[in-house]
């Protein structure tokens, strides 16, 4: 007799819109999603284990490769964790430069998200526009530390070097251009009926669910929970700087989009302040050449563009940590995906994956 059957479809690990090597096993009833099972681990490199055989400064390049589109945040978190172990405070100029780097990185990361998210929804042009500005930021990073993706930009106790001459002016030039470019994005997407139709009410995550799943970053804030590590547990120079934490209402894909767009504007605000108030002085605290923290453990968190990035370090005697554990926001946020996808259509899966903005390097570690 006639009957219907559920269809199981593999999305990934090689798929145009999974942003890396994420594999999703979709249970489909026609176009409707009955269940989603994320399968991860295709990019597992055992970074946590590697860390047990590296000295503390040698681990920083490894952190670059976790969330490779926001390497500065990882560097910042790692250096912060070891500094907390050592009881060292970097000089104020280093703290401000770190903030400048981290916020530039946040904009670059959000631009990558914006471009790929729009591309997943079919708006191809947006991708090129977003990458045009990301390119400017990558050029800034290149002149700061010589690398465009894996920066290894900081050192325990501060920075390796001060900013190059004229770098601040280049950053200011970018700050001047960027708001106009953001208006272009908004013209293309924010008021676009098709875009709004594709995102509003899609992948709703309630505040209670978001908290229960440990979701952090823009997805949490879009659900209406005002939690930003930069405000809650200020690190670097964030305590001195004024900015707002954008919060959404509905927890849907459109709110997550709006929250990230507003975050980019707030990052601009932070950058302006940080550049204006840039203190003079050294950029590196006195740290011995061989870093041997006292035995103990520390959990240090930073707000990466994707959410709360945690670094748990257990130090025993010696130059190498006994155990390192990364709390990666991509991994945690990904777990809310099945909840958000249930009952939606296939096309919504790409919209939702895009809106939680995962990086598989961060997720698989």
């Amino acid at each position, binding site marked *: 007799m006639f009957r219907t059957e559920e269809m199981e479809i593999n999305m990934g690990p090689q798929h145009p819109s999974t942003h890396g090597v994420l594999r999703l096993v979709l249970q489909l009833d026609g*176009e409707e999603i009955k269940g989603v099972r994320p399968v991860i681990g295709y990019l597992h490199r055992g970074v946590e284990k590697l860390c047990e055989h590296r000295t503390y400064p040698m681990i920083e390049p490894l952190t670059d490769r976790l969330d490779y589109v926001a390497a500065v945040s990882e560097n910042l978190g790692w250096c912060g964790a070891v500094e907390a172990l050592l009881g060292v405070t970097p000089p104020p100029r280093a703290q401000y430069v770190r903030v400048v780097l981290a916020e530039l990185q946040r904009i670059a990361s959000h631009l990558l998200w914006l471009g790929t998210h729009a591309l997943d*929804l*079919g*708006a191809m042009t947006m991708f090129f526009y977003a990458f045009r500005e990301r390119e400017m930021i990558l050029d800034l990073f290149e002149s700061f530390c010589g690398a465009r993706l894996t920066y290894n930009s900081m050192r325990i106790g501060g920075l390796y070097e001060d900013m190059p001459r004229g770098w601040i002016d280049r950053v200011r030039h970018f700050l001047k251009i960027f708001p106009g470019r953001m208006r272009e994005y908004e013209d293309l997407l924010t008021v676009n009926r098709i875009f709004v139709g*594709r995102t509003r009410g899609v992948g709703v995550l309630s505040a209670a669910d978001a908290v229960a799943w440990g979701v952090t970053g823009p997805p949490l804030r879009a659900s209406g929970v005002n939690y930003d590590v930069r405000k809650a547990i200020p690190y670097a120079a964030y305590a001195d700087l004024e900015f707002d934490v954008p919060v959404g209402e509905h927890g849907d894909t459109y709110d997550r989009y709006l929250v990230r767009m507003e975050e980019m504007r707030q990052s601009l605000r932070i950058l302006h302040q940080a550049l204006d108030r840039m203190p003079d002085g050294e950029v590196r605290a006195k740290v011995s050449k061989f870093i041997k923290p006292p035995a103990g453990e520390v959990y240090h968190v930073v707000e990466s563009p994707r959410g709360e990035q945690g670094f748990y370090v257990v130090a025993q005697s010696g130059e190498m940590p006994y155990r390192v554990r990364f709390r990666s926001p991509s991994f945690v946020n990904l777990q809310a995906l099945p909840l958000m996808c249930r009952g939606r259509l*296939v096309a919504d899966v790409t919209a939702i994956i895009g809106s939680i903005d995962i990086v598989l390097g961060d997720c698989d570690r």
Partner: protein
Amino acid sequence: MDSQTLMRDVVVPAIQIAVFLGVVLGFVAYMQLIERKLLAFMQLRLSPRRVGWHGILQPIADTVKLIIKEDTIPAGADRFLFTLAPILTVAPAILGLAVIPVAGAPITVLGWEIKPYIADLNIAVVFLLAIGSLGIYGIILGGWASNSKYSLLGALRSSAQMVSYEVPLGFALIGVMMLAGSASLVKIVEAQKAAGWWFVFPQVLGFFCYFVSALAETNRIPFDLPEAEAELVAGFHTEYSGMKFALFFMAEYTNMFLVSCLATVAFLGGWLRPFPNLEAFAWLENGWLLVVPVVGAGFAGWLLDQRFGSGLRCMFIGGVLGGLVGFALGVADVGGLASMAIPQLSGAFWFSMKVMLIFFLYIWFRGTYPRYRYDQLMNLGWKWLLPLSIANVIVTAVVMLLRGGTA
């Protein structure tokens, strides 16, 4: 059959069809290059420019590559249907071209009168709609025969979409047929000449419905769900490669060309110049004399700008100079070219201008819009376009009735 009849009924039409097909398919191939160029311009990137001068040979290179590429048939596929599907898709698209009139007057070559169309059916609009629906068979068979889930889902989406949007497409054309009192494309254009305006003006709503449905019918952004590569990899042609894929691709672009032609004929006055009945604009009959120098000189200037980085200055100067030359040639009739007034050339010129305009709209949409979702697409088709197009028919009918049977 004597040789005279044989020539008139078989050989000359065969040559005409071959030439027509060659020109159209060549144009279809170059549509792709034009699309890539324009899209690249909108997206701040360079388009193909390695093969030939500014990539002018790219379509040929693409074709050669697709022809010599290995033609794989996946294991488990239905070999017969898998091969048949692309043929079934491309054949109706090419068949539809037969009824498109590209100019007004017939042309005489070596004593043989050649009409500016291959066939003037009195049911041409219905023929085009019928032929258009046949293309779905190829798509759904291709998706089914591939024995792949992605292809199947893509094919299902595609068939659902094309079936839904054919209805408003047909209704949108009914208004035009009522105004023209005929379903023959030649008669429709002649009716627009008699009415003194293009049917896009009395049929604004109809044109809107037609254009949106045509976008959906040809699977273009924002309705390109069947091949939404972000969701379904490549939709119904995921498993296709080589020349079979090329046939699908050709069918898509031929269909685009076909619906652009139909839009031109039904709404934009086909081969007629703008303001077909105003004597004051009679010089537009020689529009090609005006437009060709402007565009040519402007484009040459733009190329100089690209080379020397002089902004858009050379383009501006080129455009102005071209405009002067064009004015001298076309309006002031220097050199006597304008008074030659070749109606076939004028007709073909305006026809292709209008087709290019519609085609440009296609590309512009592609550069701007994201993609609809499956259910939204169905909503739009059944809940908005269908009632709108029916309302358009009713309003047209009522207005015609009130005005005593004419528009």
